[in-house]
């Protein structure tokens, strides 16, 4: 995938090597501070590495925003079991496309991040679990791993330190559910990709029942900088408790869609207008999904807010995986709700009843509604069914399907009402703004 033109407003930490000639090669990486974070980590005690990561206020970039340093500290270093590092590269959240760039243009940064995590928890093997659709990235990563091994940055006795670490790539088979950490581990172990009962959490019993550090690709990619420049330097880039920069995947009805690395807390409206060049075709902004399809939608009037975990939580949504989907004034919100529910109904793993049956029911209900077969009672029913899933499903997938649906019904009720009594979709005149 070609990398979009960078924006002058970007703060390029993780993406700084993007666009360099042969950016995926180890030589380019080494020429631009590569493995310096690891070399510094080698001089630190494991607790000091974790302390540095804690200091950085690096929060999980997969969507949940759990502090990475805290997660690492849960791994029982003294456990006699082997420990594992797993990079979640099952980037499947609709609207999200940052990890693929990180892996395609700078795979060694990911390897270094994993290597530092391995050092911190005394792990000697790591897996990169790549979604099935990213098959081409496996070649890039395997080449990078081979290159790093050949030059002593992976394998036995890394850089003469006596530390061993191997990394393996593993492909998923095209299930969104496998982006959920415990389902990912099941799939990694060769089983059906369904979530596990937690506790125990992966830090205690993860891959193959052993303590495991499992982070998103972007999270690992931030680690080399943190070790090289210090946790405080990373934290200072963002807002309090939301350290560093973040890769935002700006998509939808903007003039310059793309992946932009911006500091945490960057204003959403500025992102749309100044980074993304504004809403396309001179139209007005209607709504934004701020962090991938699982996040409750924001109306245009709610968008003047800093993009960090806490601000979005206060606004009733989530920063999620950084997938910012912009929708113009002609977008049919019923159609968007339907499109999103189609995705979740297709991706529900089927393990628990509320998600399995709820997503299917909502998809059928929204489809009928969109086709003009809805009744006034159905509007309430859509919200009811979504609420009967919310907080009751086995894993967050059910919540991810329910939350946006509830927000669409609550925030755009008038659009649902406009579809009643067989009336055609009022937005249809604008053409297929959303392909269902």
């Amino acid at each position: 995938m070609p990398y979009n033109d960078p924006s002058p407003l970007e703060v390029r930490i993780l993406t700084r090597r993007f666009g360099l000639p042969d950016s995926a090669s180890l030589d380019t990486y080494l020429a631009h501070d590569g493995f310096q974070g690891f070399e510094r980590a080698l001089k630190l005690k494991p607790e000091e590495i974790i302390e540095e990561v804690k200091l950085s206020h690096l929060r999980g970039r997969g969507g949940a925003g759990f502090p990475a340093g805290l997660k690492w500290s849960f791994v029982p270093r003294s456990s006699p079991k082997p420990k594992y590092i797993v990079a979640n590269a099952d980037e499947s959240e609709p609207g999200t496309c940052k990890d693929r760039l990180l892996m395609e243009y700078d795979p060694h940064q990911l390897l270094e991040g994993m290597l530092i995590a391995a050092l911190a928890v005394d792990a000697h093997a790591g897996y990169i679990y790549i979604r099935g659709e990213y098959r081409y990235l496996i070649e890039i990563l395997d080449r990078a791993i081979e290159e790093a091994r050949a030059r002593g940055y992976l394998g036995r006795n890394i850089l003469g330190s006596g530390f061993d670490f191997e990394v393996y790539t593993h492909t998923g088979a095209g299930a969104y559910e496998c982006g959920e950490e415990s389902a990912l581990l099941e799939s990694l172990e060769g089983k059906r990709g369904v979530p596990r009962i937690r506790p125990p959490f992966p830090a205690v019993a993860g891959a193959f029942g052993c303590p495991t550090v499992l982070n998103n690709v972007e999270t690992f990619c931030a680690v080399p900088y943190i070790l090289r420049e210090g946790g405080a330097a990373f934290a200072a880039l963002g807002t309090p408790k939301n350290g560093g920069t973040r890769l935002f995947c700006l998509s939808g009805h903007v003039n310059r869609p793309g992946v932009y690395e911006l500091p945490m807390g960057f204003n959403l409206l500025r992102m749309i207008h100044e980074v993304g060049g504004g809403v396309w075709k001179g139209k007005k902004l209607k709504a934004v999904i701020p962090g991938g399809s699982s996040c409750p939608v924001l109306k245009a009037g709610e968008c003047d807010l800093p993009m960090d975990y806490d601000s979005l939580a206060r606004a009733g949504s989530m920063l999620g995986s950084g997938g910012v989907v912009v929708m113009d004034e002609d977008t049919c919100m019923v159609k968007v709700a339907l499109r999103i529910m189609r995705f979740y109904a297709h991706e529900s793993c089927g393990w628990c009843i509320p998600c399995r049956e709820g997503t299917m029911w909502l998809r059928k209900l929204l489809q009928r509604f969109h086709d003009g077969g809805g009744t006034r009672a159905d509007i309430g029913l859509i919200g009811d069914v979504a609420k009967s899933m919310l907080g009751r499903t086995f894993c967050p997938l059910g919540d991810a399907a329910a939350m946006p649906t509830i927000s669409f019904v609550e925030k755009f009720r008038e659009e649902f009402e406009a579809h009643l009594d067989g009336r055609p979709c009022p937005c249809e005149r604008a053409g297929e703004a959303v392909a269902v």
Partner: protein
Amino acid sequence: MAELVHLTIDGRPVEAAPGTLVIDAAKKLGIEIPAFCYYEGLSLQAACRMCLVEVERAPKLLTACTLPVAEGMVVRTATPAVAQARKSMLELLLTNHPLDCPVCDKGGECELQDMAFRYGVGESRFAETKVHVPEKQFSPVVFFDAPRCILCYRCVRICNEGLGVNALGVVNRGAVSEIAPNRGDHLECDECGACIDICPVGALTSGIYRYHARPWEMEHVGTICTFCSNGCKTTLGVRGNRILRGNNRDRSGVNGEFLCIKGRYAFDFLHHPERLQSPLVRSGGELRPVSWVQALGAVAERFLEARARGGRIGVVGSNRTTNEENYFLQKFARQGLGTGSIDHRRTGDVPALLSALAGRGDALATVADLYTTKAALVVASDLAQQHPLFAFQLRANWRHHHARVYTVTRGPVREDQYSVQALRVPPGGELEAVESLAPALRKEPELVILFGGGIRGAAVQRLVAFGDSLGIPVKYVCLVDYSNSRGAFDMGLAPELLPGYQPAPNPGLTLAEMLAAPDLDVLWVVGANPLREASLAAEKAFVVVQDLFLTETAARADVVLPAASAYEKAGTVTNTCGEVQRLRPALKVMGVKSDLEIFGLLARAMRLELGGARPEPVFEEIRANVPGYGVPAAVLATGGAAQTCPAAAPEIPPRPDLVRPASDTLFTSGTLGRYSKVLSSVLEFPGELYKGAGE
């Protein structure tokens, strides 16, 4: 014992051991927390979300089936939020569930029906098209109706975890997820039907029972399976004098809810069209139907005549008849006919074990011991093939208590999946291999040794000596083959043994000797088929056979008396562990009589004074006279299993030469098994996994 944890459920205090799940703690208070996927003994699933409860300080509802109790925890199960959650789960569950209850096998005993009635809203707001998938047949006995399935994964877990067969899994995802068999379109498995039984709805149905009856139309008769020697209780569903199904949903009996294909389905032999329903007497070289009076008269006349002239009379007893029948038969032979020539087909060397143990009754393991013992050693037996309940018990013990299981067998066995050591030996090499395990076994706190018919005579002595040398408590199970093989020995169906393993004063001929004796005058065979594998040397012998079918032996008989099967009579049987259990008659078959009744009628025709030929007085006589059988009658009367404690068999020369294990597989069972359509249909079904090598 760790400190108990105190918590409150619905305002009532309760204490529970640490690690107890809230759903179980609530049960102690009589509070029902509904659940589909939670199933005692299987792994946790938390998929059905029916057991959501409110827990103080928890931001959302939690699943009681995965929530361990904690000190001071406050749980509420009767709040509006919980009730609403249950309602919406049921509404969601019923979206795709077809409401075909009136034609569904499960109607009337369906957990979904019960839950919808108790916790549901009564109406559905689902107005969309339901997902429909055509019904599939997985095997001769397993049908699957996907739309009815609520995906609780009980079937998958009982098969994978409980049986270790791994024949069921899930394909597809989301609302079109489906339970699927291991061979794409069909099952290759034990065909035990546990998946059908455990299914809370009518998704998995039995090829034998489906569309035959509603559960409330049947009488449910709990009796003991007549096939192998494990002594499983099977509850037969009877309507219109026909057995329609077998299961054990009330978990009573030594087997809990476990049943293999034989206990669950193979009752169909008794409805086989070749079932004898009239006595036959040979005239003009052919067996012709006659009345009972004529047939019994003919037998009595020849018996009296043979006894009067001191002729040689041989009596062959059965591995499947009741203790009462066996006891009465040996009494008939020894007292009534004056012959010591009485035997049965021996399938294991029980006397050798008892004589080696020299009266240590506490060294005999029960079925329950297999679930609790810390360690077990299986010698020369493929339990999954021949003793499926024991395989299940040991596996459950391993799953729940981490029991350490050792195997010494000729070929691969199911226990290899989890055994700590599995030794492969050539026939005869078992003892050496067992002895090589001594260092490991000495470290175990206790041990149960199960050994098959291949270990007999001196080998049993050597095995017990080995057990004694370990210095830990060791219990034994001598594995025999059929439902009352153990009882046949206990009741003295052996020329050298009186009931209770007392030495017989005048031992007569053994089974092999009877068949080989050219001057045998009378051969009386009760429920056995010795001529299947051997021939009768005495061409002129008068042969009487009591059986269900015209077997190879019955075909040679001069008089054939049609007998009742175990499911048609009362009495007791003793399993291979020595546990006595009661049979209850499930139905009557026209024209047949129980073997005990036949003995009584013959005794009367011969004017013998042998006492009343009814099960109760005969069992009282056994309790009074047979050493080890003084079991509490109340235990049996209430459907329990009472462990017998046979005295030492003093100074009996071992007869390992007479032991001939049947080498049945999961789908065969001697002559009787041939008449079960279910067993033959499964044998004909494609599949290589369970043809069985035999041990």
